[in-house]
Structure formats: structure tokens, C-alpha cells
């Protein structure tokens, strides 16, 4: 018994040094899970002789909750609408452009979608993507697909062969865009029309409502078409050459994940250096290669989609840019959010 206690003591002592590093040398980064090449972190640590605490989250809302509990992070990488909310609530601090002197690296395309922060005062884009349709070109003719766009989800010929991503915001975006409305509408009649569109979709194609398992399923060619984020689509297309990607002509959502520094960051100087480091060509290249989402770095985007690049000939890798009907999400008020989710539940219940 004595031996056991001695062992416990040793183990608990081992835990202590973990908390003992001086604050100056530590950078706390909070990012989406599986959304970086870990080597980049290791390289940064070596180059700047610091330690990076790298935490991960699975949704903007989870990240927001953690931030509200008083957690102090130096760099966070939320999506556009969440950055809009954080700026409004004064939870971010301005970036130091004298440290981040490589903003010219940003791709023109992603710059066009920074309505939440047009001058990069608070944020620097990290990766970006569109929402589109991955489909089996041996089952659905590409010309048909392009012609139908989102309305393919109403085509009874595809009944039983459709995956729908189980995300209320994205599902309503599909319906609103198919009807020619804005994805950020707050008009009740437009929302209702979208709700009816989704109910019709549910009846017409009887989709399976899925989340990330769709990536593997489409790579294995289980169904004919699926609503997918372009970054995941790029992976599917590289695994299965029968698959094609369509960004519907009715317009879609463009999502930008960008690096920000919270107001309560304990090490803003190092945070600014980290952001500059990520935006550098080699590091952006490693991240985009590993993750498959489009880089915010113009040169990387060109390199990976160009001749000899990892995503040469991959329609999903580079998001469509400068298209008038494409838009980013804006932060929507709480009551609208709960309306979305109750309507979406009804759609899934075939009500």
C-alpha cells in the first residue's frame, strides 16, 4: 500500500511543472480541431523559443462559451459571423500592423468577403471555403447539375440518394438562395418560403441528414449527391475521381475563418508575431496542404491549384470569388436563431 501512495505522489509531482512556465514564453492558441499542420506549431516554437498551448473546439459557439468563462487566449480562429459579434461586443483588440507586415500576401478573393472587418483591423483570414454540392458524375450529368444548382435537392429522380448536411444555417441558406433571397434575411415571409422549400425537399428526395460522416461516405461513393463544404469536397474529389463539385449559380455561402487576438490576451506581442508567421508562404502552404481548405495566402492558392500542385484540376479547392450572389453569414439575433432551429427540427421530422 505504501508503494502505491509513493507512486501517486510522484505522478502528482509530475503534473506541477506543466503549470510552471513563465507567462512571457507561452502562447495560448485556440483553433478548430484538426485544422492545422501541427509541424507549423513545432516550427514556431523552435524559431521563437516559446511554448504554444494549443487548444481546440468544435464550433464557434463552444469557443464563445469558453471565452465568456474568462479564459485568456492569445490567438483564436473563429468564423466571420462570430468575429462580427466579438467586434461588436468589444472582445477583440486591434492588431499591430507594424508586426504583421505581410498582409499583402492575402488573396484578393478572400479580401472581398471581409465585410465584418474590411481593413484587417482585428482579423487576418486563415482559411476559407464555399458551400456546394459534391455529386457522382457517373450518376448525374455535370451539365444537369450545373443547370439545376440547388434545385437538384427537389428532384425526385434522386430520391434516396441524397445526403443533407445537418446544419440549420446551411440548410436554410440553400433554400433561401434557391428562392433568390439573401442568406441573411430576417423577413418572415422569406423564412417561411424557405421552410416550405425544405419540407418539399424532405418529401422529394428523402435525404439522410448527416454531419462529418458524409466526407467518408461520399469518398466511398455511397450516394449520388451531398451538401458539402468545399474544403471537405477537395478531399473527397482527391479520393474518388468520379466525384464532381458544383458551386450553384444561384449563389452560396462563403465562410472565412480568421485569426484574431482577444481583448484579454496575456501575450499580444507574441500573438501578432504568430499571425504574421501563419500568413507566411511556407506555413500557409503546409496548413492548406494538410487541411484541404483554401488558403488565404494568394501564392499558396495559386501553387496548390496550379500545375503540379496538390489540388491541380480539383474543382473544389479554390472557392469561387467575386460572384455577386455569394455572401458571408452575418451574426443573427437569438430569436431568429431559435426560429431556424425549431423549423429545421420540423423539417427533419417530416412534419
Amino acid at each position, binding site marked *: 500500500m505504501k508503494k502505491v501512495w509513493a507512486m*501517486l505522489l510522484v505522478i502528482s509531482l509530475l503534473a506541477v511543472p506543466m503549470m510552471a512556465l513563465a507567462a512571457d514564453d507561452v502562447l*495560448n492558441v485556440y483553433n478548430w480541431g484538426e485544422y492545422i499542420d*501541427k509541424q507549423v506549431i513545432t516550427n514556431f516554437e523552435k524559431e521563437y523559443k516559446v511554448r504554444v498551448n494549443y487548444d481546440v473546439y468544435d464550433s464557434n459557439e463552444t469557443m464563445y462559451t469558453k471565452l465568456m468563462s474568462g479564459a485568456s487566449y492569445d490567438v483564436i480562429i473563429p468564423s466571420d459571423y462570430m468575429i462580427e459579434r466579438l467586434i461588436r461586443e468589444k472582445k477583440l483588440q486591434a492588431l499591430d500592423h507594424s508586426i504583421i507586415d505581410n498582409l499583402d500576401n492575402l488573396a484578393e478573393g478572400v479580401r472581398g468577403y471581409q465585410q465584418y472587418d474590411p481593413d484587417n483591423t482585428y482579423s487576418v483570414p486563415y482559411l476559407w471555403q464555399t458551400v456546394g454540392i459534391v455529386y457522382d458524375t457517373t450518376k448525374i450529368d455535370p451539365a444537369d447539375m450545373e443547370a439545376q444548382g440547388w434545385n437538384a435537392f427537389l428532384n425526385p429522380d434522386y430520391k434516396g440518394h441524397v445526403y443533407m448536411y445537418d446544419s440549420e444555417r446551411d440548410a436554410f441558406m440553400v433554400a433561401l438562395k434557391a428562392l433568390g433571397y439573401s442568406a441573411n434575411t430576417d423577413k418572415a415571409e422569406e423564412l417561411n418560403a424557405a421552410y416550405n422549400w425544405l419540407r418539399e425537399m424532405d418529401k422529394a428526395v428523402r435525404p439522410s441528414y448527416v454531419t462529418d460522416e458524409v466526407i467518408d461516405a461520399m469518398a466511398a461513393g455511397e450516394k449520388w449527391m451531398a451538401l458539402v463544404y468545399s474544403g471537405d469536397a477537395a478531399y473527397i474529389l482527391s479520393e474518388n475521381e468520379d466525384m464532381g463539385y458544383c458551386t450553384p449559380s444561384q449563389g452560396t455561402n462563403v465562410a472565412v475563418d480568421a485569426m484574431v487576438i482577444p481583448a484579454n490576451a496575456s501575450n499580444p506581442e507574441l500573438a501578432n508575431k504568430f499571425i504574421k508567421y501563419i500568413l507566411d508562404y511556407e506555413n500557409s502552404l503546409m496548413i492548406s496542404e494538410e487541411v484541404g481548405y483554401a488558403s488565404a495566402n494568394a501564392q499558396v492558392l495559386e501553387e496548390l491549384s496550379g500545375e503540379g500542385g496538390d489540388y491541380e484540376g480539383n474543382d473544389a479547392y479554390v472557392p469561387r470569388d467575386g460572384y455577386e450572389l455569394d455572401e458571408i453569414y452575418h451574426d443573427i439575433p437569438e430569436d431568429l436563431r431559435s426560429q431556424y432551429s425549431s423549423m429545421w427540427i420540423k423539417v427533419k421530422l417530416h412534419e
Partner: protein
Amino acid sequence: MERKRKSPWSFMTNGYLLLIMLFIYLPIAYVVVFSFNDSKSMTKFVGFSLRWYEAMLQDRTMLESIRTTVVVAVIATAVSTVVGTITAIGLSKARPLIRAAVLEVNNLPVMNPDIVTAIGMMLLFIVPGVQLSMTTLILAHITFCIPYVILTIMPKLRQLDDNVAEAALDLGANPWQALTKVILPQIYPAILSGALIAFSMSFDDFVISFFTAGVGVNNISMYVYSMKRYNPSVNALSTLIVVVVTIILILVNLIPYIKEKKTKKEEQRL
């Protein structure tokens, strides 16, 4: 003697048993098999490889989450087992009214949904301005483990004959000796199972950990839940956990058996 005739139901009952075993063990087998898959796919087995084990060992965040989980679980188990055992022994000697009241209070966190405990603990820490950290995580784990330990040990204590401890005192043992040489050996199995329950509760807790862990502190559950995409290293990690748990279970069951044999042999020699 006439041999017992096989009941026509035996096939059914055996089949039922088999089905239940399949339901319990197939998912585990699946995870183990796919941890050796040579592809990122979670449905197609392409070929044997150790690449996900390699990836796991190179994934620093994952390794740190394993370390955090083990450290937290071991400390939480040790402290909650000691506190829980002392509380249970004390309660067994307490007046019935007090005992009933304390047990009722003890049951509350067990019945409460984790999310209530989690938010409550988070507020308890952040309202007075305590920074969430590894320490708050460990404190939270100790707190939610204690009720389980008490619940496992109480029934065993009720079965004890009070006279045995009294006899020890009569025969010249001091109270400490009566506790360590008489009471504890009798309830030892219950303490062990209490500790095992505490360990497994702490090991796979997500909700409470998520709300009480500080910056840079992740346990395995938090790490796995927040993956944006499926990563097969998780299979490798799960396989490792299954192996460790199996070894622990075998040891827990074998050690008393071996001990018993040893004492029997010694008795024979005498």
C-alpha cells in the same frame, strides 16, 4: 442417473447471450481493427499498417491530453477514495437522522445531470475570480467522484458486524489499529470497486471537464469531441485504452486469487 434433457429454450437463451455479447464487443472489435487500417477511411479496410499509432505518438496535443486525463484521474481517484471512505465509515456510526440527511445530499449530484454540476462548478470558480486551470479541473473531478465512492462503500459497511470492531478494541487495539486492521480489510473490496468507478468516471468525463478546465488543459474526451474532422488516430488511442483497461481488470481479478493461494500454502506448511 438420467441425463438432463436439453431444453428447447437453451438454443434461444444462448442465442440471446451471443447477441448481447456481439452488441457489446463488436464496436470495440471494430475500433481495434480499424486502428490498423492503412487508409483514412472509416468504412473500408485497405491493409495493415501502424501509421495511426505513429501519428498518435507524433500528435503532441493528443499525447498531452492523455497525460492530463491520467494525472487528473489518478489524483481524483486517490483523493476521492480516501475522503469517500472516511465519510462512509463516519456516517455508518452517525445518528440515523444525520446519516439519512447526508446520504440524501450525497445522492443529489449523482442524480443531477452533469451539465448542471458543470455550470455550477464553473460559476463557483469564476464568480470569485479564480482562473480556470488544471487545479480547478482536478478539484471538480474530486468533487463529482466522492459521491460515487460513498455510494459503493455504504452497503458493505451496513453488512459489517459492529461487534468485531468492538472486540478488537476490547482486546487492546487502539482506535487507529481497529480501523486499519479490522474495518478496512473487511470493506477492502468495496473500496477497490469505489476507486475503480471513480477512476472510470473521471477518465471519460467531458461535460464537467469542459467547463472547469483552463487554457491549455485538455483531456482525451475534450480533444476527441472538438475534432472538426474524423482522425483515425482516435482508433489507435481507443485501442490502447482498451488494452490498458483489460490488463487492469485481469490484474484486479487475479491478484486476490494468487494471494489466497499463497496464504493457503502457508497455512498448509504450518
